[in-house]
């Protein structure tokens, strides 16, 4: 359908969207997690070992790349459920660092040399099917009971608790959900990049994902999608600027954030659309 180049660009955008949406799971209960990249690393390495050394079918490998982060996410999510704000950011950052150092020293997955020769099993539709599934999930979540409870927790934990929500358990679930999505994202990434190394899953990527979310609007998941899509595609557009493209890239982010500090798609825009719809109907 597309030529190789377009396919590569679109796959990359899709994976970035998946990773950004994985941040919005814990964000739905008001928790900012930087650990997503760590779960991505776990998913990527696990899936690669399964397909490359154990010849497990890709689908099963991805399933494993979902389940292990889910389990770890439940465990870690339980530990950090009571943390908030800066302490939470640091704890999740530390988790990412621990995972990175682990893969730096873990010989079976090639330690610092990384793993080469991964089969290119990730196809464009895999990535976008997952994006579509996530969109559906987030749309349905808003109207579900658990989604409303999450909104309530994000809004005011004390009130949520007083109305019968088990706040700690909900936070743990949201965190594990994000870990699961990030794990699958990692599995897809590995079989698209065909080479992974511990340094692919460090602070750089964490910062990039966070930038997508903040740029697009951290309050609503659609914002994260927009941010991931726009900022992943921007470098392609900016190739005309040659050596200056990074400067232009930075300048664009600065200008947009200056104009809309709350993100491109923020709640105020959402409210405006809502009231517009009410007036028109």
């Amino acid at each position: 359908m597309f030529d190789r180049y377009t396919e590569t660009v679109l796959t990359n955008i899709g994976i970035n969207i998946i990773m950004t949406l994985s941040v919005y799971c814990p964000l739905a209960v008001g928790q900012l997690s930087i650990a997503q990249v760590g779960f991505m690393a776990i998913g990527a390495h696990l899936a690669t070992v399964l397909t490359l050394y154990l010849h497990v079918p890709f689908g099963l490998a991805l399933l494993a790349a979902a389940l292990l982060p889910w389990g770890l996410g439940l465990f870690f999510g339980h530990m950090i459920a009571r943390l908030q704000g800066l302490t939470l950011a640091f704890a999740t950052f530390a988790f990412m660092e621990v995972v990175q150092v682990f893969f730096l020293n873990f010989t079976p997955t090639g330690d610092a040399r990384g793993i080469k020769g991964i089969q290119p099993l990730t196809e464009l539709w895999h990535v976008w099917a997952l994006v579509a599934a996530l969109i559906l999930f987030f749309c349905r979540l808003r109207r579900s009971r658990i989604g409303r409870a999450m909104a309530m927790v994000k809004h005011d934990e004390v009130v949520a608790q007083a109305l019968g929500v088990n706040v700690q358990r909900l936070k743990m679930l949201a965190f594990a959900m994000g870990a699961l999505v990030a794990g699958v994202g990692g599995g897809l990434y590995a079989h698209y990049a065909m080479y992974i190394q511990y340094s692919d899953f460090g602070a750089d990527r964490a910062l990039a994902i966070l930038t997508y979310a903040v740029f697009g609007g951290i309050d609503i998941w659609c914002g994260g999608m927009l941010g991931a899509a726009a900022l992943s595609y921007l470098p392609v557009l900016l190739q005309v600027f040659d050596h200056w493209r990074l400067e232009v890239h930075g300048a664009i982010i600065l200008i947009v954030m200056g104009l809309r500090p709350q993100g491109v798609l923020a709640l105020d825009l959402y409210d405006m659309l809502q009231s517009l719809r009410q007036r028109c109907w």
Partner: protein
Amino acid sequence: MLRVSDVHVGYGAIRALKGVSLEVNAGEVVALIGANGAGKSTLLRTISGLLRPTAGDIAFEERSIRGVAEDKIVRLGILQVQEGRGILTRMTVQENLEMGAYGRSDKAGIRQDMAMVFDKFPVLSQRRKQFGATLSGGEQQMLAIGRALMARPKLLMLDEPSLGLAPLLVNEIFRTIEDFKREGRTILLVEQNARKALRCADRAYVLETGNIVLTGAGAALLQSEEVQAAYLGGRAEA
């Protein structure tokens, strides 16, 4: 329905409740009055599961709920409308009410109760699509009470519902409580407005620095000299 027996609660070295016993029977409105710092809110928070008693027991429907987590207590049927109301300010009135029914899954019943709340508080119906933050103090109090009703609580605990409201609104809140009484709801009411609270309560307890010092029928306490001197500003006619 609710039995609090000899409950002690402390914050660090400060002992806020020193052996409080109290009972609420089904269909009763029980008032708990007392001055600032007497321990009224502490008692409610202990019943809600926010605080753990150091000694004594709390039983709800003959089962001990001491040390049970707050969200479980809500699901057992004890709902507290907090002082300061705790409205979700960035959600609409309707969404706030839906949140109250969080623990329920009977859609028809929820819709029915929503209609009941709007019927009881017509002003909320007019504000249905407005954000909680745009409501006045009285409307927020009504919303908080309405939201608690959405959970179909067996026992409703109201913490200072008249706090910070204009006199007309205070009257309206107490009229609502009278309505609840007629409907046979079970209510534990904490109030500083002792006169109004005693007037609408079946029974009342007077709390003073962590001890229950007086108890009796609401009307009887209203006549009692001790209560009149301490809480009703002298010999005002009842």
